[in-house]
């Protein structure tokens, strides 16, 4: 484990691990950490000599494999051609319900967020949906969301080949059990403890008595990330990469 791994690098490396074995991952616009995680997955696959994950970044011109307009992502997902996708939420609850619409009563939300986007569909049909929200506070992780943009689980008669498999936050990594249903804390990021996470989470979750620490990136992976992936990412997220480079410079790791 490298003491110099940045928190964002741990998240990116964890995402790359969660994406192991996917053929095609789609990433929403303005999602630099998931995009970097997917790029790292692709780089690792190439290094390991296995078929490399294909990556589509929505709204990007360069990382856009689609030629049939903005419906094609959803069509491809419906065809089973998208293995993994990321969702976030203004609120996420213990049933993995996601709220992207707003706080308070609907439709006159006290706080209105943009809207559900494709979540009410993709959450059902993409097999490996990774919930990602860096802010880990009780206002995000609530007992029950105010508005269900997309439900975490469905009754057995509902066609649902997809759904949540994991929740990654700034404090830890959870897996999701669709049967129970509910989250299990798999690991804590360095510097966080179980009680802190319980206090920051508005819903109950299962956990080992002593949760392990989220594994850090090995030196080879970290090297791949800081050289190849960082450069690849720069094209789509120049401001994010500049910030990252500043953090690296602070570590004495300037590139």
């Amino acid at each position: 484990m490298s003491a110099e791994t940045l928190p964002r690098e741990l998240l990116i490396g964890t995402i790359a691990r969660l994406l192991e074995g996917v053929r095609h991952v789609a990433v929403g616009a303005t999602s630099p950490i998931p995009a970097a995680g997917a790029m790292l997955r692709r780089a690792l696959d190439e290094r390991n000599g296995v078929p490399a994950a294909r990556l589509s970044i929505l709204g990007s011109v360069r990382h856009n494999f689609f030629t049939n307009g903005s419906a094609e992502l959803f069509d491809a997902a419906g065809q089973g051609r998208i293995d993994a996708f990321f969702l976030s939420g203004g609120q996420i609850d213990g049933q993995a319900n996601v709220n992207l619409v707003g706080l308070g009563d609907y439709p006159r939300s006290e706080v209105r967020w943009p809207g559900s986007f494709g979540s009410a569909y993709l959450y059902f049909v993409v097999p490996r949906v990774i919930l990602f929200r860096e802010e880990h506070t009780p206002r995000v992780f609530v007992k029950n969301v105010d508005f269900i943009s997309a439900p975490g689980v469905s009754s057995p008669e509902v066609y649902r080949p997809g759904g949540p498999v994991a929740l990654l936050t700034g404090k830890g990594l959870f897996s999701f059990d669709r049967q129970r249903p509910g989250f299990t804390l798999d690991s804590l990021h360095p510097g966080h403890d179980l009680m802190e996470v319980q206090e920051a989470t508005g819903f109950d979750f299962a956990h080992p008595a002593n949760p392990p620490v989220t594994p850090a990136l090995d030196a080879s992976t970290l090297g791949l990330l800081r050289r190849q992936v960082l450069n690849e990412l720069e094209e789509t997220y120049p401001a994010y990469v500049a910030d990252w480079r500043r953090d690296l410079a602070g570590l004495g790791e300037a590139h």
Partner: protein
Amino acid sequence: MLSNLDEMAARIGPRMHVALPVDYAGVAMAMTRPIIAHGAGELHLVCVPTGGLQVDQLIGAGLVHSIETSAVSLGEAGGAPRFNQAVKDGAIHLSDATCPAIHAGLMAAQKGIPFMPMRGLIGSDVLRNRDDWRVMDNPFAAAGDPIVLIPAIRPDVAVFHAPMADRFGNVWIGRRRELAAMAYASGETLVTVERVVDGSLVDDEMTAAGVLPALYVTAIAEAPRGAWPYGLWGEYATDVDELKRYAVAARSAQGFADYMSEALRVHP
């Protein structure tokens, strides 16, 4: 078929259903102020499948009665201030959707069918709040298997921006085929373009592959940099600073009014 912005804006009448494209597909921003100046109100906006600056400005100008959308935001510049305020005030009627449901509704109109089935949605509050959608059991399944039916969306008019058109009314939309989907589904289609070219865009198979044929196009007006401050794929990038300037200004009704009353800034 070649027209100008004011003539095209005048085709938008009160209570019309108006389809507008997503930020990155080609937004006819050059039409926004002419539409506001023309002033037809009580519009129903259909965002294909999400809305941004143009939607926020039409709402801010008081022209919008209702909106069907999967989201409204200014992207990197944050939330859509006039939309958010209108929601809080209950000033617009909301039909919250999800992106593929809007595509499905347009596809139903394209196919001349009353509805399209769609997976997903069941158990969401998106579905719970849409009394114009239906759920039925898939008749091809042995038992159960509920599926949502999305009714056709047939806008009166679609408005978008594209790189080029020819003088026969053919519009080159490239791979942004949601623009074609909007036009197929809509009664009229109004297009602003960066430039009008001389030859026919359908005479060559290479250009023809990206053409929305004149059959679907009502009027075209030349509007160089007509998507600004949005970008146009293959042509120019989004002016994020301008979006942010708007986002700050439009936090208040007065700030919005001041922004809109400025002389149209010369853009870079």
